[in-house]
């Protein structure tokens, strides 16, 4: 009709468009959608089920490896065990070795990244503790199991931080509030915290029944039950006691650990690495013969100071085809401690426990302790193809020998610097270039805003 005609085509087109537009999209209302890319924290904090807790445990164990290469670079370089040559990162051979006037920078990656990694994992353990406490799916034993696990790992992470910042102390983390900052702790307060966590963890593990409800990866095999994990806890306790020079506790803890003087020196708890999706590969594995600009090489003194016949040299370093050099340093030996990108890295192993027993005996020095200690040192020496210890049976000489065996047995496992430091022998470490320094403590990261010297 006329009306329809005059109701112009235009208006018709327009109304159709409007209809389409209106029908096609959520015009005015906006939905508040959750994060499409990840799990949100709120969803796991309150009454998590066992599957949620399993994933948190998996995350915590994985998190032990975050930026772990920096631990080995920090300890290894300052301890004069190795050099990490990287042409694009001058601070490795600069700051870490105290070249000329450089200092350890509280804002640089070698200070900040390890610290952040440890505290992120401490947060994971606190989330575990907080959330499993609210979970209605756990029995008492299961709850104790996960608490024992979390507290042991938390103690270990605090210990890692304390090993680096040393005299500067560490900082506590407020367990149940992600928004608060904790109090700074002095070195001794830090050690006290580590000890109390290990002890609480041990008592939880003692009441955790026969098995954990959660899984642990193969690096924990042999230690993935409450009883086994307790042995791991005691091993760590022994290490801490030795650092605190509490020799009796060291020996007692070792007795409850997995120490096995007749067993494989390599038995222990390890970080795993695979090439699976989302997994990490061993970050300190590299071709020993790589070009100078990006290479991991042994400090020349490691080979120069070795006893003839020590088969650990061939195992742990490899003669390069060309000398590696950077920034006034050089070495002919590449690191080959880890043979592939999936080689596990030990957290703590039998060899260290045997050496700790020897150390505790030497320092306690009562009755037959010195000769008992020599027997343990000989276990290590013999395994390395060396004859028995033939030096003087004095405490001073045995300390030298014990430190020497630790140097070669635990090479590039993050011990040398700490060992020489706790025996006040940092001035015995070699200085390669005039003006270089051996650092005693890392600064607390400047982002902690604690104001330091």
């Amino acid at each position: 009709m006329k009306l329809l005609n005059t109701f112009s085509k235009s208006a018709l087109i327009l109304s159709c468009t409007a209809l389409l537009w209106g029908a096609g999209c959520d015009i005015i209302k906006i939905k508040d959608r959750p994060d499409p890319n990840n799990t949100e924290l709120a969803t796991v904090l309150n009454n998590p089920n066992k599957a949620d807790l399993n994933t948190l445990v998996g995350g915590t164990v994985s998190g032990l490896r975050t930026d772990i290469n920096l631990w080995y670079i920090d300890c290894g370089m300052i301890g004069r065990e190795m050099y990490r040559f990287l042409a694009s990162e001058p601070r490795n051979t600069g700051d870490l070795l105290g070249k000329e006037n450089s200092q350890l920078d509280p804002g640089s990656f070698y200070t900040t990244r390890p610290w952040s990694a440890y505290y992120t994992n401490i947060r994971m353990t606190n989330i575990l503790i907080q959330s499993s406490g609210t979970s209605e799916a756990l029995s008492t034993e299961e709850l104790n199991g996960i608490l024992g696990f979390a507290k042991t790992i938390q103690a270990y992470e605090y210990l890692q931080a304390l090993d680096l910042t040393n005299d500067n102390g560490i900082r506590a983390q407020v367990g149940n509030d992600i928004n608060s900052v904790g109090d700074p702790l002095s070195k001794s307060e830090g050690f006290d915290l580590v000890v109390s966590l290990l002890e609480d963890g041990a008592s939880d593990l003692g009441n955790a029944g026969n098995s954990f409800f959660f899984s642990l990866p193969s690096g924990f095999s042999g230690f993935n039950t409450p009883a086994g994990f307790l042995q791991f806890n005691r091993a760590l306790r022994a290490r801490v006691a030795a650092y605190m020079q509490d020799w009796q506790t060291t020996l007692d803890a070792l007795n409850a650990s997995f120490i096995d003087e007749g067993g494989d020196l390599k038995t222990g708890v390890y970080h795993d690495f695979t090439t699976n999706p989302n997994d990490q590969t061993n970050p300190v594995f590299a071709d020993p013969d790589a070009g100078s600009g990006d290479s991991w090489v042994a400090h020349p003194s490691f080979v120069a100071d070795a006893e003839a016949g020590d088969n650990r040299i061939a195992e742990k370093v490899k003669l390069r085809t060309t000398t590696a050099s950077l920034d006034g340093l050089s070495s002919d030996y590449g690191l080959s401690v880890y043979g592939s990108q999936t080689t596990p890295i030990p957290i703590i192993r039998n060899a260290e426990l045997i050496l700790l027993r020897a150390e505790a005996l030497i320092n306690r020095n009562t009755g037959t302790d010195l000769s008992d200690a020599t027997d343990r040192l000989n276990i290590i020496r013999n395994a390395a193809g060396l004859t028995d210890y033939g030096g003087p049976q004095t405490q001073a000489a045995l300390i030298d020998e014990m430190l020497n065996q630790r140097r070669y047995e635990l090479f590039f496992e993050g011990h040398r610097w700490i060992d020489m430091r706790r025996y006040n022998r940092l001035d015995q470490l070699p200085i390669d270039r005039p003006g270089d320094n051996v650092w005693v403590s890392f600064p607390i990261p400047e982002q902690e805003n604690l104001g330091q010297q």
Partner: protein
Amino acid sequence: MELRYRSLLFSCLLFLISQTAMAQFTVTGTVFDQKTGDVLIGANIYHADSNKGTTTDANGKFTLQLPGQNATLRISYIGYITRNVQVNSTASNDIRIALTSDVANLEEVVVTGLASTVKRSNLANSVASVSADQLLGTSPAQTLSGDLYGKIPGAEISANSGAPGGGISVRLRGVTSINGASQPLYIVDGVYYNDDAINNGSNQVTAAAAAGSSAKQEDPVNRIADLNPEDIQSIEILKGASAAAIYGARASGGVVIIQTKRGAPGAPQFSFSQRIGLTTISNKLGTRQFDADKAEAAFGPTGRTLYEEAAASNRFLDYEDLMYGQNGLLSKSTLSTSFGNENTSLFVSGSLQDDEGIIKTTGYEKQSIRANLDHQFSSKLDVAVSSNYVHSKSRRGLFNNDNSGTTFGVAMTATPNFIDLRPDASGNYPDHPFNSSNQLQTRDLFSNGESVNRITTSVQANYKIFQNEASYLQFRFTGGIDFFSQNNKLIFPSILQFERISGSPGTLIETTTDNLNTNTSAILVHTWIPSKNVTLTSQGGFTTFNNDQNSILSVANNVLGTQTNIDQAIELTVDQTKIFQRDRGFFAQEELNYKDTYILTGGLRADKSDRNGNVDKYYFYPKASLAWNISNENFWNVKAIENLKFRVAYGQTGNLSNFGAKFTALTPSNIAGLGGILIDDTRGVANLKPERQTEIEAGFDASLSSGAASVELTVYQKSITDMLLQRELEPSTGFQFESFNSGKMWNRGIEVSLDLLPVNTSNLRWNSTLNFWRNRSKVTDLPVPPFDLEAGGFSTTLGNYRIEQGQSATQIVGSDPEVDNNGNLVYRDANGNVVPEGQGSLSIITKKLGDGEPDFQMSWNNDFKIAKSLTFNFLLHWKQGGDNLNLTQLLFDLNGTTHDYDDQDLKIADFRLQAAGITSDATNAQKRLALLGISASQFVQDASYLRLREIGLYYDLPVSAISALGNTVRRIRIGASATNLFTITNYDSYDPEVSNFGNQPISRGVEVTPYPSSKQYYLHLNIDF
């Protein structure tokens, strides 16, 4: 009543039609420039009533058949003031129409509001516009952002590197945000055009983000590069909140409104243009000259051996030439056509671009096709559809920072001229003796390709609801879709030096990103003229914006043979990231125009978004402005000044938070088959809101009646509150970062634009434009301790951008020895007390060492039209001040290969020499290396430059030559031009314009071995037929 109205309209229509059927007459005439008498080719003659039009031919003549007995013709031509001319059937032959030059661009129509336009002479803001001619008229750049250099006062446009294919930052009026977006919002024909820069995943191999900075350093391209500059008709830039308020929460960085070319009624007109060119490196640095002792000192005994080998046969290679010495061929062909009838017109264009880079295996190709359709359905409804498909491929090499020795640039720093990295006759490359990669091998065997397919379509419909003499109501609907699919593929074959020794040789990195933007707006515009002198324009409406992006990054290691599919490998990791955004907004604006003398505007926008903590909350952004055309006042009698306008404008816009900032996420982890979740380093914040920018701008425009000069001056203050700050948390909380809103900052600046016509005779027309602009920023309130930007450097030892209360937002800080009031070094003991030298250690503190903000920028553009057919133009750009962090030089020094390593001309302040324990006769590199750890001042370098951005000479073939080819050819133009012809600077690296961290709101100018910049020479041919 309605029916009567309709029938009245109907009968009017009938009457008109009948009139048309009965009478007609033909009008012919010539259009010419009033001052010079030259004919104007291509001037538009338009008859509104019958909707007929035509353009003048090569002789400036036109013919038009008109209905009835008389008519009003509208004559217009770009750069001239439009005129209405009455013609009637009795005097319709050979009419001569004179047009006057519009130096002040008074006639130009500028978009304000979302659906209204205003004449420039009535505009209350300083809105910059760039016409098609200004965009491409002198010498082209590879992508759009490069065509804008020096043409927009107040804009800091800067390329991130010399890599082909784009990657250029546009910052309007200083610092818009610290952590939020800072690039402007681009609107192309009504579509919100996505300008994201998507990373290619190369960090998996380069490990650039693994040490001092965890920010991405992959030199991505931001997607505005896809737009074809040849399609653009005009660009308007709204520089700040006072102009852009009406765009709401996405407009803090300004708004760039782009209109593409549209068809014109008439017979098909074609335009073909072809350019071919050559690109070559702008600036080579040179390298150190060695002798056997120096070679050994820098590289050990191997160095001596290799040096002696080279010296024996005098085989010293120029690696800059081997790597960067390709003279790349450039080519772009464009064919476009425009045709139509009274109701429909169409513009179609196609373009093929193929540019090589200065490095073999790099380059950029783009194919683009566009179709713009305008159709008038009826007198009430017209619809414009714009549609564009672009496919581009860019290959940008591998540059910028790395922690693995794999990028070309870092490898170059480890390369002295006495080694030989070239392949042998069988194509085998030697290993680099001093680096983990051989850059020639990497360049030749690896590939880094980015391929983008993009479709952009918009529909704009205008419906005139009613119209009478006093009022006019129209409804405008715009819908736009912008979809792109980007694929980045990096192939590192297992034969590469660093791949062979890795545990899993061969790496394939593939990122596939799909992005869809849709936006709609529905607006009512009412124009009401209640009396002769008053016009009121009201508009109100609703807009929506949706964005969905899905990006999948796959990394394959331990690749099978030479395969390149991502599943042909032993290890595969996959990472998926999704982003979404929903914005909704209402707005209303009222404009009052009294006699074109007082123009008052007020408006309000309300926006909500799912980027905010509360998705239902509306945030309000007001605007207000006043323009006073003094020259239109009755009392104005200064004849010499044609136009004098004062203007003041105020507005607020928002800036939304980055995606994910409100979530506390646990990310997936995997250890030996045990899956898990691990907290991320960022603590989420539930009450996030947008930043707020408030801008006040004031200025004046003036132009002389003679047309000889016009000036525009603007001062502005941009204040930003509720800044999105990402504070660094104490890492002992388990988190490192958290976003929150707080803090205040301002930018203040001045923009001056002087447009002159010094010479305007028939043989020479010289138009000169001088732009000057300057911006200063300051952080006035910062509720957190000063923090270093993650993407602003690597630590205070090497220099870093730091946000600190009371300081410029772009300050650069770094270590430096402490000095007392007498200028002497300070020594402190372990407790921090000042002690004499020898009793303590040197005190090294963090100081402000420089600032990234330039002191000012100037551009000077000159157009010469000589003897009517020759055009010569050039554009000079001067940036004075503004510091860079030159870390490229540091890498050269550490490797012993810097070109000035052994020179002794570097001036260092005495106190620094003393602190480092060196004397002033040490070599340059000795000084710089000794200062490492003592001071970062040697890295903070002045990046001032004077650059000849564009220069071109064009010749229009004379009419006689053209007519020999037949009647169809209207114009043939040939020309030669050069882009970035020369740069005068003291900066000691490839280009003072650089950014290792890409498009950053604040921290530009940090450089770590970038892709070097190049200059281009072109020959042009343009045929209109």
